[in-house]
């Protein structure tokens, strides 16, 4: 029966993200699980290289390293989201952390979290400047490739008071292109969402693969910070 109380361990995301996922043999501190340091170094190097690339540096990540990382992640079998922010000099792999209604929360092993409704970001925590909550269009509205939608973002300022930013957005198709997600190529349809409001303007972009999965997106986080680049590495 469901109502018997049991001791539950503290939920440690080290088992969900980088370290354990990359340790090939799974979670834990079992010495037989193999050398942890290589995949960890690998992931760190890949992420660093990705940041370098995002910042316009010429050195692309070593393809062999990327392939090794992808193989490790696929073997672990968990959905993985890669998140990058140039402004915040932040890059991390995120794994599922919770589900509430239609909203899924992803987290890094450092408990930086990102919540998406239908893959559209509706909240973040731990980035520093965080989106506390949002009114956002549905994925279907975006995927339709046309139309106008309204967005509202809620933030806490330096006095912990809520600030609201409203935008009106126009959705338009932007053609098809090939994108690379951690060493794997996808042909994707790009859709743009141009938003403007009293406080400024920004543009989100979405790449849908041939299976209509949102493979990659750039989504607005907070004024003054570059958009987040989100890549769905493992489904």
């Amino acid at each position, binding site marked *: *029966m*469901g*109502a*018997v*109380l*049991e*001791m*539950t*361990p*503290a*939920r440690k995301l080290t088992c969900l993200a980088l370290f354990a996922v990359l340790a090939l043999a799974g979670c834990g501190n079992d010495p037989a699980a193999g050398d942890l340091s290589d995949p960890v170094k690998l992931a760190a190097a890949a992420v660093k290289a990705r940041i370098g690339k995002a910042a316009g540096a010429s050195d692309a990540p070593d393809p062999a390293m990327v392939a090794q990382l992808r193989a490790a992640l696929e073997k672990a079998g968990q959905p993985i989201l890669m998140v990058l922010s140039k*402004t915040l000099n932040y890059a991390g792999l995120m794994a599922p*952390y*919770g*589900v*509430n*209604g239609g*909203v899924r*929360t992803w*987290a890094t092993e*450092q*408990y*930086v*979290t990102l*919540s998406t409704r239908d893959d559209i970001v*509706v909240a*973040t*925590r*731990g980035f*520093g*400047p*965080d989106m*506390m*909550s*949002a*009114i956002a269009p549905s994925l279907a509205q975006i995927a339709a490739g046309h139309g106008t939608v309204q967005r*509202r973002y*809620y*933030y*806490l*300022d*330096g*006095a*912990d*008071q*809520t600030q*609201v930013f409203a935008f009106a957005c126009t959705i338009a198709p932007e053609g098809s292109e090939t994108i690379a997600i951690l060493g794997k190529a996808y042909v994707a349809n790009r859709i743009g969402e141009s938003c403007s409001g009293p*406080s*400024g*303007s*920004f*543009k989100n*972009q979405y790449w849908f693969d041939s299976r209509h999965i949102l493979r990659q997106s*750039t989504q607005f986080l*907070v*004024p*003054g*910070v*570059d*958009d987040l680049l989100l890549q769905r590495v493992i489904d």
Partner: protein
Amino acid sequence: MTKSPMFRHLTRVGLALALAAICAAPAAQAEMRPTMNLSGATGLIDMPSGEQQPDGFLALNHGEFGPIFRNTLTFQISPRLSGSFRYLGIHRWNRQVCPPNCADANGFTTYYDRSFDLRYQLLKEHKYLPAVTLGLQDFIGTGLSAAEYVAATKSIGPRLKVTAGLGFGRLGTFGSLGAPLGDRPRVDIGRGGKVNYKQWFRGTAALFGGVEYQVNEKLSLKAEYSSDAYLDESARRGTFDRHSPFNFGVEYQYSPMIRLGAYSLYGSQFGFNVNISLNAPQRPRGGIGGSGPEPVKTRPERGTDPAAYSTGWLAQTDAKDILIGNLTRNLERSGILVESLGVTGDTAQVRFRNTKYDAEAQAVGRVARALTQTMPASVETFELIPVVNGLPTAKVTVKRTDVEALEFAPNAGAALRPRITITDADAPAFDLARNPDLYPKFTWSVGPYVQTMLFDPSEPFKATAGVRFAAKYEIRPGLILAGAVTKQVIGHAGAFGGADASPLPPVRRNADTYNAKADPDIESLTAAWYGNLGRNLYGRVTVGYLERMFGGISAEVLWKPATRHWALGAELNYVAQRDPTGGLGFSAYDYRVATGHVSGYFDLGKGYHLQVDVGRYLAGDVGGTVTLLREFQNGWKIGAFATLTNVSAKDFGEGSFDKGIQLEVPIAWFSGQPTRSLRPLVLRPVGRDGGARLDVTDRLYTTLHGYDKAGLDAQWGRFWR
């Protein structure tokens, strides 16, 4: 990605400033930032202007030219009112007069003085009207720098500001227009500390004025005509030559907080200014950082899984222990300690301690989330009670259904707030099980400390620094043994015991002696008890070495409902003065005194707090203290206090009565990361024996403040952080 230029600009300035700028953008043209003068008053170079700083700004200003330097702390008390505390020094003070005349103030080669200003903006700038400010400079004290003025400033376009003013006192000494409001009576300096209102706007008046031109975002130029003749400094004492009334300068905005200036003054002097302006109401990094919370865990529908809602677990003998254990592990990384837990089939009450978050609402939110992860599905009502020093504070009652439903609701904080209640934390209706692993609890810390002694006439800045070891042993909730020992690493070898003679017992004036001799110093060594004496009634008894200079017993009661805007307290202490050697003895002074106060605490709204204490002070004097504080939502507190007792100005000594400025700076403001650390700072122009209070730690009101309804509501948005 495409971004408007505005967003790119915002990236550099920082999120908080961006939010502030967007939200407070004036309808009129882009305004020039109001800048400060060498005296740390909003103004030109040496002259004030009609403007004020943005509300809540705190500025530290160091201005220097020729032989004169001024260090000023200025606070924008309200949108129209600002106040300053200034420390002034004039070198070469007696070179023209001593010898032969070396009496009194002429004995100093450098003259130091402290002063207070107040400025009130009569008129805010409108399309056709200038901003107009009335100012009182150095209005308490010796009055050496005393001046009164009315100044008007008008922007002409986005780059130019023009200021014109009429000055009295110092600011009426050059280019006099005569004395329109009659003669200025001589100031009766006495012991200082008097409000010289009979002088205000009397004596000769003169015009001053100038312009400020903003070349670009960073650079501006200033030119002014000064009505200050520097009669004393220039003509009489020859500390510098005043050749001309015209001053010129260039200022550079190095960063949003730091502004630098270089000037040519009075045709003969070079001057410079360093201004640090802090926007106290807004953390520079905006929203608080730190890791994300546990997600809310939803329950299965009762219809689809009725078994999940069974309350069979209540029969489990170890139910509470298991739940406390699970909750403790879930909250560990949030720095929240579970003190006790009570559960029925449908309600859980958690009493917890927040060791990490500067906002109680955030701790409450974390506990609510943890309860959705750990409580059986039948538990629908969460009662969350923050506990501090064993004392339950307010009770926040939250419905689990609301937490589940609103986690991702737009504006979730505002959406949840009407569905919760904040009430007094009265006795629970059911049994609470204590967390068996929490007590006894031993904590310790080793860290650096700095002790400053300011404004000594012969050596205005003295400091000792070293290492402080502190330890705390909590035997059970509300019963705490604590102590702190310091060892100086950098001491000051200067003379001590130089305090003036006074008929009062030396309860505070020998602080220098303590600083020099108490090394190592047992700062405090106490046993303290905190308890609930009744509904909303709290009690404290602290015994031992209470502070550096006194030991004994201190007892206090406080009546503080969590939902009212006021509280009442009473404190009674019997203490003996400790030896200045930092040990455990009481023989050096052989001084014992019963001291205590009745206190009223009033939340005046909009962050203004008033405290009134009436009672007997350490020197046996009787009187009252008024403290007015402004507290910002992010925890900054800035205020001033004054104490009047039956000690005469003559017996009190320099300054006539005890007064000063009080600051409390949250470390989270600087770091952007959650921490409860604070840096308190009390600035007194003169530390004397009259109106001195015992410095016992963790008084009840201080302990409980911020945990009440007002404190929770001020940062309610943090519930979901």
